[in-house]
C-alpha cells in the first residue's frame, strides 16, 4: 500500500468511505510519521496518541455503520492556541505551564463533531506573536523545506509554524491555525501549503487563547485548496458564545473549488509593489496574473492608498489589545507562579519569568500606547487609520473588483537565527507587510503556493476577498494551484 500520509484529506475521506483502509490505520500512519520526524522538526509540542487511537476507533465504528461526519477519521493537528479539553494548552508559553483546560474551543469541537481525529498540539510562536516560530517556549520549528544543496535550518514561518511544518511534512492531514497579522498565510507560503484566514467573525474565537481580539481569526492550513475548503467548512460556525461571530450560514466551500473564474475582476494593488521586493517575487506575481487572465479573469490595476500605514497601525492595535488580553496570566488561577515577597512582586516575577522576549516587548509597547497621555496619539489614531484602510478596500470592491492578487510574503523562508532579523524587531515585522492589511480590514485572505524561489524553497501568492466571500478565494486559488502545481519538500528527516 502507498504511504497513507501522502493522501490529501479529500482522497483519504473517499478511501475511508470506500473502506479501502481503516481510520485506525490512517491514524497509526501519522503517529508513526510524527514519531520519526518530530525530533528533527519540533512541529508537535504534544502528541495525543492514545486519544488519537480512541477517536480513530470510534470513527471506524461509525464508518462501519455507513455513518460518519464530513471529516470522519481524518487525523489533524491542533495549534497550541486552541483549548482542547484535558490536553496541554499553553500557547507555547512558559507562563501557561501545565495548563489543561476543562473546556474545548468551538473550532476544535466543530472538527471533532465532524469526526476528525486529534493527533496532538502544534508548536507556534509564543501567544501567536511572531513570524518565524522562534519565540516558542518549546523551541523553534524547523521547516521541512531546505534550500537546494543546503542543510541550513529554515523557519517554517509564524506564528502557525508548527501547523505549516506538520502539514508540509505529512505529519497530519491538515491543521488548525490562527492569523492575527499573517500567521496562517505567511507560514503557508514558507512551506508550500495552502492557508486561509477567513473573514473576521466566520470562525468562533471561543476557546482560542487571545492575542489581539479584533484581529484574531482561526483558519486551516492544508495541503491543497480543496482540503483547505473542506476544513474551513467544518471549522466555521456561528457561535452564541462569541459576540463577534456572525450569524450566517456556512457555505459548502468545497463546492467552490474548481468553479470558473471567467469574468471575475481581479485587482492588482499598486501599493504592494514595495521597495526592495526581490525580482523573483515580482516574477511570481506576474505569472499569477497571467494565469488568471488566461483563465478568463479580468485584471485591473487598483490603488489602496493607505497600505503603507497598515504595519504601523497593526503594531499599535495588536500590542495594545495583547497587553490587556495577557493581563490574566498572573500566577493566580493557572499556569506558572513565581513567588515574591508580596502579591505585586509575585505578579512581576511570574510575568517576567513566564513571558518570552517578544511577548514582553509587545506587552510593553501596548501598555505604553494605552497609557495616560498617549492614547489619542497612538491607539485612537491607529484605529482611525484602520477605518481608512478598510475604506480603501471597500472602494475597490464597490468598483466591481471581486478579489485582489498580491504576493504573500516579501521573501522566501529565511534561516533560523537570522542575525539581522533577530537584532531588528521592525525588520521581522516587515514579514507581514502584505498580509496585515487583510486583518486590519477584517477580510478573508488565502495563501496558495505558486512556485519555488531560486533557492528551491516555496513562494506563495495571496488572494484577498470581499467580506464572507471565501468561495471566490477558493475558486481563484484553485486556478493558480492547478497552473503552478503542488509542492512537497524532499524528505530529509
Amino acid at each position, binding site marked *: 500500500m502507498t504511504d497513507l500520509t501522502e493522501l490529501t484529506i479529500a482522497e483519504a475521506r473517499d478511501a475511508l468511505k470506500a473502506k479501502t483502509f481503516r481510520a485506525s490505520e490512517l491514524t497509526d500512519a501519522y503517529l508513526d510519521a510524527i514519531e520519526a520526524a518530530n525530533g528533527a522538526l519540533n512541529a508537535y509540542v504534544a502528541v495525543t496518541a492514545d486519544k488519537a487511537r480512541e477517536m480513530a476507533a470510534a470513527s471506524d465504528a461509525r464508518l462501519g455503520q455507513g455513518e460518519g461526519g464530513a471529516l470522519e477519521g481524518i487525523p489533524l493537528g491542533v495549534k497550541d492556541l486552541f483549548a482542547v479539553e484535558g490536553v496541554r494548552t499553553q500557547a507555547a508559553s512558559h507562563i501557561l505551564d501545565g495548563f489543561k483546560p*476543562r473546556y474545548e474551543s468551538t473550532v476544535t469541537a466543530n472538527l471533532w463533531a465532524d469526526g476528525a481525529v486529534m493527533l496532538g498540539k502544534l508548536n507556534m510562536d509564543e501567544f501567536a506573536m511572531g513570524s518565524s516560530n522562534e519565540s516558542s517556549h518549546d523551541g523553534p520549528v524547523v521547516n521541512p523545506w531546505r534550500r537546494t544543496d543546503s542543510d541550513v535550518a529554515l523557519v517554517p514561518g509564524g506564528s502557525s509554524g508548527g501547523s505549516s511544518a506538520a502539514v508540509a511534512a505529512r505529519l497530519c492531514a491538515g491543521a488548525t491555525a490562527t492569523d492575527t497579522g499573517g500567521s496562517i498565510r505567511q507560514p503557508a507560503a514558507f512551506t508550500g501549503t495552502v492557508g486561509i484566514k477567513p473573514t473576521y467573525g466566520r470562525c468562533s474565537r471561543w476557546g482560542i487563547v487571545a492575542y489581539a481580539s*479584533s484581529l484574531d481569526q482561526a483558519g486551516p492550513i492544508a495541503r491543497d485548496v480543496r482540503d483547505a475548503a473542506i476544513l474551513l467548512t467544518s471549522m466555521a460556525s456561528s457561535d*452564541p458564545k462569541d*459576540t463577534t461571530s*456572525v450569524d450566517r450560514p456556512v457555505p459548502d466551500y468545497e463546492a467552490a473549488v474548481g468553479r470558473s473564474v471567467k469574468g471575475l475582476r481581479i485587482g492588482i494593488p499598486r501599493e504592494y509593489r514595495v521597495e526592495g521586493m526581490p525580482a523573483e517575487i515580482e516574477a511570481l506575481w506576474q505569472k499569477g496574473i497571467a494565469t488568471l487572465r488566461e483563465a478568463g479573469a479580468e485584471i485591473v490595476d487598483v490603488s489602496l492608498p493607505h497600505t503603507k500605514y497598515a504595519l504601523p497601525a497593526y503594531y499599535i492595535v495588536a500590542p495594545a489589545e495583547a497587553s490587556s488580553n495577557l493581563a490574566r496570566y498572573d500566577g*493566580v488561577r493557572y499556569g506558572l507562579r513565581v513567588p515574591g515577597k508580596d502579591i505585586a512582586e509575585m505578579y512581576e516575577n511570574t*510575568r517576567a519569568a513566564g513571558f518570552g522576549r517578544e511577548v514582553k516587548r509587545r*506587552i510593553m*509597547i501596548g501598555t505604553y500606547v494605552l497609557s495616560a497621555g498617549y492614547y489619542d496619539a497612538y491607539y485612537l489614531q491607529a484605529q482611525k487609520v484602520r477605518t481608512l484602510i478598510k475604506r480603501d478596500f471597500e472602494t475597490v470592491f464597490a468598483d466591481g473588483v471581486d478579489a485582489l492578487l498580491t504576493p504573500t510574503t516579501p521573501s522566501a523562508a529565511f534561516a533560523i537565527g537570522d542575525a539581522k532579523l533577530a537584532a531588528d524587531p521592525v525588520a521581522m515585522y516587515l514579514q507581514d507587510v502584505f498580509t496585515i492589511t487583510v486583518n486590519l480590514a477584517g477580510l478573508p485572505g488565502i495563501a496558495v503556493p505558486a512556485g519555488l524561489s531560486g533557492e528551491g524553497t516555496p513562494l506563495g501568492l495571496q488572494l484577498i476577498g470581499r467580506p464572507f466571500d471565501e468561495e471566490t478565494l477558493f475558486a481563484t486559488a484553485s486556478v493558480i494551484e492547478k497552473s503552478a502545481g503542488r509542492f512537497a519538500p524532499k524528505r530529509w528527516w
Partner: protein
Amino acid sequence: MSVDTATVRRVARLARIAVSEDEVATMQGELNAILGFVEQLGEVDVSGVEPMTSVTPMVMKKREDAVTDGHKAEDIVANAPATQEHFFMVPKVVE
C-alpha cells in the same frame, strides 16, 4: 517621542513585569525603534474619520437572563498553583 529608562521602568511596573537593569536598556532601544516606526501614522489626515469599533458591521448578540453556568468550582480551581477548599490562594494582600 522617545522613551527614557524611567518610562521603561514605569511601563514595566504598569504591566507587572520585573525588569533587570540590562533589560531596561535593551527594552528602551527596542521600544524606541518600534515607536519610531509607528510614528509615521501621525502624518495621516484622519479629520472626520471615526475610529474603528467593529471590523465586521453587525449588531451585538445578547443573552437572555438565565442561569446556565457555574457549579463547577472543581474545574475553576483545577489548574491553580495554590488552592484550599476551592479558594484561590495568593500572598496576603493588605488593603
